[in-house]
């Protein structure tokens, strides 16, 4: 390279640097996506961004769209299935072109919802009919609606647990660990499978928040103090995970686990237990059928903790569907969201909770009903603050890192004690909480 080009290059770089601060500076505009009055008058082509690549590929989504067209004949629905949903949508959110209907990605700050999405209406109105409205409420307006809800719990192989001599759900963490030990000594199954390498299953441990305290405000409390203080939900959960790993009750080599491969293994009884969500039941049943095992062996039990003699299970929304604020067909997009939530049967098809209040429970959760498990709808008014503290502290409540470190600690691949580890998390959390000023 000769000297002149070098100089030209650096000049260009400098010029670009000046122009590089691209802050698009969009002011908050705010818009409403009103529900259309007359289905025949709504028209246009809408694009729905979805993370359900499986449903788009096997044509299920197309079937939903065809059903939708019976009511709204003039709306064309197209699907854009994204494998790496979070990653791809995050980048598209920097433009105006992010579909007409999309699932709100986790990266968007709650306070920014009015900049990106059109409002679906006032919370006071929507909360009468739907669950989970406050997860997307900003200044009294709702910006998204989840088409289904899930309960966290342990998926387990009923046959294996029975062989180990346990027929009742454990009611304390210690009883649970004892149960896993019985599985280890009396059967050939791996008592608990962490899915360490695939990471995200570990993040599910955070969703037990609320199951110990039975407190609606369990997630809001995260913004008010150390989540790993003595007796707090997360400390109980993380201690249980630690004890399971410490007791050698997990797979031999967690660093090379395989999520897809783990499904038929649990179905066949090679694995006894996994901590996931009720949404996983359908997938495991399908895997059981494929592997020639009995789908009815797949059971689902709540977190081993009771308050006043009852188990608690927290209901949480899946991805929330929202209308792109830049969409030209907001009425059609709104019509899709309403129809998909109320009439599509999506929640029932997935054996999950319907977000419509008063809808019947799916039959897989019948044991929950029989045992009198209390369903808790979490209050998410401080969700935005929790997320902010979480990012600031780099703890990652809904990220795998700290749980992976916890598992490493428990199996001796990392030095330290559990108390120090949880204490350090708490310290980082408290510092971030103070610096974000909550």
């Amino acid at each position, binding site marked *: *390279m000769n000297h002149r080009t070098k100089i030209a290059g650096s000049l260009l*770089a400098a010029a670009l640097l000046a122009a*590089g601060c*691209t802050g698009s500076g969009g002011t908050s505009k705010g818009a409403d996506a009103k529900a259309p009055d007359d289905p025949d008058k709504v028209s246009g082509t809408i694009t729905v961004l979805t993370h359900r690549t499986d449903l788009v590929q096997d044509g299920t989504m197309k079937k939903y769209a065809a059903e939708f067209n019976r009511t709204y004949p003039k709306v064309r629905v197209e699907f854009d299935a994204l494998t790496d949903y979070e990653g791809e949508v995050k980048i598209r959110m920097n433009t105006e072109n992010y579909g007409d209907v999309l699932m709100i990605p986790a*990266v968007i700050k709650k306070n*920014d919802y009015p900049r990106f999405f059109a409002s679906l209406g006032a919370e006071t109105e929507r909360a009468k009919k739907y669950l989970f409205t406050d997860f997307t409420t900003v200044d009294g307006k709702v910006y998204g609606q989840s088409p289904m809800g899930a309960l966290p719990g342990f998926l387990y192989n009923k046959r294996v647990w029975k062989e180990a001599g346990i027929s009742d759900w454990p009611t304390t963490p210690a009883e649970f660990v004892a149960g896993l030990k019985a599985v280890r000594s009396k059967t050939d199954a791996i008592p608990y499978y962490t899915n360490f390498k695939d990471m995200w299953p570990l993040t599910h441990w955070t969703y037990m928040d609320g199951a110990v305290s039975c407190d609606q405000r369990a997630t809001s409390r995260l913004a008010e103090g150390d989540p790993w203080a003595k007796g707090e939900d997360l400390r109980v959960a993380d201690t249980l995970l630690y004890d399971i790993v410490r007791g050698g009750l997990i797979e031999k080599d967690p660093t*090379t686990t395989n999520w897809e491969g783990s499904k038929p293994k649990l179905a066949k009884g090679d694995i006894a237990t996994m901590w996931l969500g009720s949404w996983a039941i359908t997938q495991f049943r399908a895997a059981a059928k494929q592997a020639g095992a009995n789908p009815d062996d797949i059971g689902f039990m709540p977190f081993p903790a009771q308050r006043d003699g009852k188990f608690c299970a927290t209901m949480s929304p899946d991805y929330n569907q929202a209308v792109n604020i830049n969409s030209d067909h907001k009425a059609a997009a709104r019509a899709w969201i309403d129809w998909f939530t109320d009439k599509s049967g999506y929640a029932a098809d997935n054996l999950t909770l319907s977000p419509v209040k008063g809808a019947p429970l799916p039959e897989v959760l019948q044991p929950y009903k029989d045992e009198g498990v209390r369903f808790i709808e979490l209050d998410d008014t401080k969700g935005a603050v929790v997320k902010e503290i979480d990012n600031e502290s780099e703890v990652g409540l809904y990220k795998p890192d700290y749980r992976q470190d916890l598992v490493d600690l428990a199996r001796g691949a*990392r030095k330290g004690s559990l108390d120090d580890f949880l204490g350090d998390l708490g310290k980082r959390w408290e510092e971030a909480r103070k610096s974000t000023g909550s």
Partner: protein
Amino acid sequence: MADTTGTDTNEKDTTGTGPTGTGRPAERAARRAEAAPAARTALARGRDRAPRGLRLRRGLTPWLFLAAPLVLLITFTYAPVANMVAYSFTDWDGVSPELSYTGAENYVELFTRPELFEVFFVSGYYLAASVVQIVVALYFATVLSFDVRFRNFFKGVLFFPYLINGVAIGFVFLYFFQDGGTLDSVLGLLGVHSDRAWLGTPVSANVSLAGVSVWRYLGLNFVLFLGAIQSVPGELYEAAELDGANRWHQFRYIIAPGIRPVLSLTVILSISGSLSAFEVPFIMTGGATGTETFVIQTVKLAFQFNKTGLASAAAVVLLLIILAVTWVQRRLVPDDKVDLV
């Protein structure tokens, strides 16, 4: 490890004196492009009494040729780097339309958090691995530059891993290191029944990952060395043999000094590659069990905790570290001309 292509060699190519030897490099490049010798003489003649228009056109010609690469270079190299530097002075979260200028705050935070630099210890494994890599590559390059049976076959075998996509390699080696996977089976055939999780502890995980890295990038080093060795004139070996030199002497006194520039380039690439190791550990372990490298940490800051500003600052710091290391190395081992005769 050494995953950057040899930009340095390209550079050398343009600065080397061409057959004509005079004129500015840009002009020379243009002239070289107009390959036909007839055109060249016509141009040279035209230079003495060129009319204004022709002169202008001649001034423009090199830029026309340069336009495409310059546009590509600016769009895909300089503009993103400039953007990255700009972001490093902001508190951008990667998606929000609001971003505010925070001055050097990100850099201050970076340097007041020593734990962010602890991950460079992991680079030590990759650095050690690249020593092995260079020695092995050099050995094979030397052996295969002489007459060996199935020479080309072995060349292909050695270079092949470099052609595979890094993501695929990550997945393949996950099976390789699995409990009861390929490695355990092969060891079992040899009568060694190891019962260990290869990625289970920080030391064994890092050694395994560095091993994958050697497997992957050995081919590149090998090809670079092979090319350099083959540019050594063959008569030298004959002469050396007549003087009674054995293979080791030939290597020591002809090959090693003959390929010194390529050797030092490889060392630079290896060091910068070790500092910025990413895809193999990211795909195989995601940075778990003490295998987190600086780049993985940066990616997590940016995409997991949405601290794009801080992550950009970390990326800028890594760039500066690599530039500094390269500079120091260039001072220690100046790139002087090779003269074997």
